[in-house]
């Protein structure tokens, strides 16, 4: 998977137009808190793409896009991947219908442009858990929905508890062909 991620980065540079993200894209390194202008916060989850609007010393001002359902923001209209959970009163810029943009600040250390930094541990866990009986399928060869379906069958064989299952499923979905980084295959 490290290879996939490395190749993805190379492809990003070469074929930027194929991806949802652009070359200056950063990602949330670990579950973090985004502070809005009015002091209200939003919880942002690992792997979410962020656009850095402004460098502010140790902090950065970032923009995060998604689709809002109640207090939750998802990556798609079909609510497949959770992007953020916003505190009541957090200022949300609405573009059209439930499409939203969250703007706020967080520590620069909590973002990374290196996908391996972001997903390295998940990837190791994936290979440890999902290659005991068979070789690990290429993560970006499945859509998010396909991963949910296959994962539903397989998680029992991998002996995962709830926390591990959601940790792994987030990695699989985020890196799926229609996940945070969209790759044409």
């Amino acid at each position, binding site marked *: 998977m490290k*290879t*996939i991620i490395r190749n993805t980065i190379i492809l990003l540079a070469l074929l930027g137009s194929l991806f949802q993200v652009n070359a200056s894209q950063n990602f949330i390194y670990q579950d973090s808190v985004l502070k809005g202008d009015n002091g209200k916060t939003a919880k942002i989850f690992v792997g979410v793409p962020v656009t850095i609007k402004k460098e502010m010393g140790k902090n950065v001002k970032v923009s995060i896009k998604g689709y809002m359902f109640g207090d939750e923001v998802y990556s798609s209209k079909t609510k497949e991947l959770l992007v953020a959970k916003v505190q009541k009163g957090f200022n949300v810029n609405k573009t059209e219908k439930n499409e939203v943009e969250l703007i706020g600040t967080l520590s620069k250390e909590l973002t990374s442009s290196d996908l391996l930094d972001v997903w390295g541990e998940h990837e*190791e866990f994936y290979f440890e858990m999902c290659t*005991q009986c068979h070789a690990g399928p290429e993560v970006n060869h499945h859509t998010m929905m396909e991963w949910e*379906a296959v994962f539903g*069958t397989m998680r029992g*064989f991998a002996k995962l508890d709830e926390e591990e299952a959601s940790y792994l499923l987030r990695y699989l979905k985020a890196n799926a062909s229609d996940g945070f980084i969209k790759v044409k295959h």
Partner: protein
Amino acid sequence: MNNSRRDFLKVGAATSAAIVGSGTVTGAFANEFAKRTTKIPSASHFGAFYAHVRDNKIVDITSQLDSDANPTVMVKALADRNSSNSRVKYPVVRKSYLEGKGRGDLRGKEEFVRVSWDTAIDLVAKAIKKAQDKGGNEALYNASYGGWAHPGAFKPNALAGRFFNQIGGAVRTSGEYSNGAAGQVNPSVVGDMEVYSIQTAHEQIIENTEVMVLWGADLYKTNRAGYSVHNHRCFDAYEEYKKAGIKVISIDPIYTTSAQEFKADWIKIRPGSDVALMLGMMNYLYKTGKYDKKFIEKYTYGFDRFLPYLLGKEDGIEKTPQWAEKLTEIPAKTIEKLADIMVSKRTFIAGNWAMQRAHHGEQVDWSIITLASMIGQVGLPGGGFGFSMHYEGGGDANSGKNTIGGMSQGGGDKVRIAIPASRMSDLINKPGENVTYKGKVIKYPKVEFMLSAGGSPIGHQPNVNELIEAMRKLDTVVVVEPWWTPTAKMADIVLPATTTMERDDVAGAMSYSADRIYAMKKIVDPRYESKDDYEIFTMLADKFGKARRYSRGRTVKQWLERLYKRSTAKRDMGISFDKFWDMGVIKYDIPTSARKFVRHEAFRKDPINNALKTETGKIQIFSEKFASYGYEDFKGHVMWFEPAEWLGNEELVKKYPLHLVSPHPTYRIHSQLDNTWVQNVHKVQGREPIRISPNDAKKFGVKDGEIVEVFNDRGSLLAGVVVTNTIRDGVVAIEEGAWYSPEDAQAGESIFGGNDQRKVRCNSGQVNVLTSSRPTSAMAQATTANTVLVSIKKAGTVSPNVAYNPPKIIGA
């Protein structure tokens, strides 16, 4: 298993004093033998057992009766397998290969030379580096595919994959032979693979099911062994099925063991026509208005896109019961009656996996799901469908606890080419060509080096002769095995592996009940010069400077303790590894609530909050995604496609009038145990039996117990005739897994000229000599082993079957 004279004399000396105490000579010997015999717990695919060991010899195998409720005879054969003369005793290299001459065309024909471990490992490493230099890691093919070698944590295929990943990866396998078609379709149709999913609990079947349709499923036979450690408790459940008065209908060309046990009504379907039967039933249910409209509306998507096809509005052919009668040879009235009973009674459809191992196999499960949707009982207790009742005790209630996993292959693969299972020969034969797969395209690389550990491709890959010819084109073939399997005999380098009886391991069981963890303790010392797979691959990794990364510096015991840490036994019950190891087995309770499990019940109760993981959250009778692939032989909804070979093909039938099916074996797991005495229970004159109906036996002039030649354009084999009225006319059956054995090993095609490999008869009855490597469709590219026409004739003169003899080895 017999005590030797040497044992007897030793005991005699030791016990002379005890005779006085025991009163009799016999009693004294018995006491002394008992004292010197240890009982060691272990586990296998055939069940959990104790090995009784004396003087480093297994003298008996008995089942762990508190874990294996209904042992089979197969577990008794494990001792024989361990001491078999078919063991690979030393590292060996094919003569011409060792001499640097290559001569891949001589694979399977030439003697081997005994070498040291150092020499063998050096040669393997050199061959890998040579292939890497020539074509990068894409020139390496890891053919170690399934995890069926044994149920422990140290599975050879995972250890081989781990090695290759440490050196940058290799071409590997995607999907599987077992469920290569359904496994690619079901997740998008019903949001789950279904073939490996927890089934509706036996208790719910017993309480609610009125009719059980065994659509190709043989619960009794295929549950004789498991992927993990089978507990055979399902046989007790089946007794309750009988007592509950469930009416069982078997739709199958064979009157199976299960059909016989359940005294089932037998619908003798023509092989390969099941989808036509389902369409005929669906048409009838629709036209009579008996289908469940509410279920279709609420829980499915795309019925309106499927209906025009069902009614013949697209192709001018309405899929009526009369239409289906012509294809299935089942009377239209029977088709209607079958639909009537299934829609009016609480009916459970137990699908199987064999039907989808056929041309257009993608259609089968999808069709059952569509039919079950029209019947409308999906998610009701005892109703709906299940595709795993015949596997791992499907229907067993789940403990909800963690057992134990296995060694992982880890990351590091840079090759990123995985060929669909069953494309093995194409991979070697067609470098540079493209193959479609699930809406994508894969380009075959040029493979130079092949390694197989813990499995026998000349066994599970269809069209053996095609594979043999392909393997003879490679630069190097390496096999890591305890036994001289047919694939080992085709190798250049063979590395002797220990059996699981010769090393420590652990196993969790079963896939669905998840209620046991077994210690698989070393029972006897490794025989001859065999080494553990783990040690072999660590040695290989060392040649690439990767030994430390491969093993992480851990011993086997350290790995086992690490794996055990994730179990419920350790995490929640606080049982230390040492304590578990002393106990030999840990048992988990099954909660009562698990016995109430009904598959798809949550979806039925609340399809919004428990939406299926599909495009629409519903059952996809039509799939936009599948339609978008644009394949000619796989569309957006279920369709009938005529198989390339079947009894409905009037032209082909003139030449090959019998349809050959190759069900799972009764006395093996695939090819495992074929080299043991237990095969004598069923083999005919040392060959795999071919079952044939009395009418066909008469027609072809063959008699019960005689050896016949079974043949088609792909090859021929010898099999022993069993005339039985448990198979329909026009169909013959040879169970898969016999060890391939060329009648004349020196014959066969040579790249330097010579005979055609297809003219070499298999003396043993390996059915894949006759099966085709034709893929299911452009979509799943899966195996079609059950789409085969053959003929039979008198065998003529036959020579002894030497399938289990080692090859000639110089220096041994």
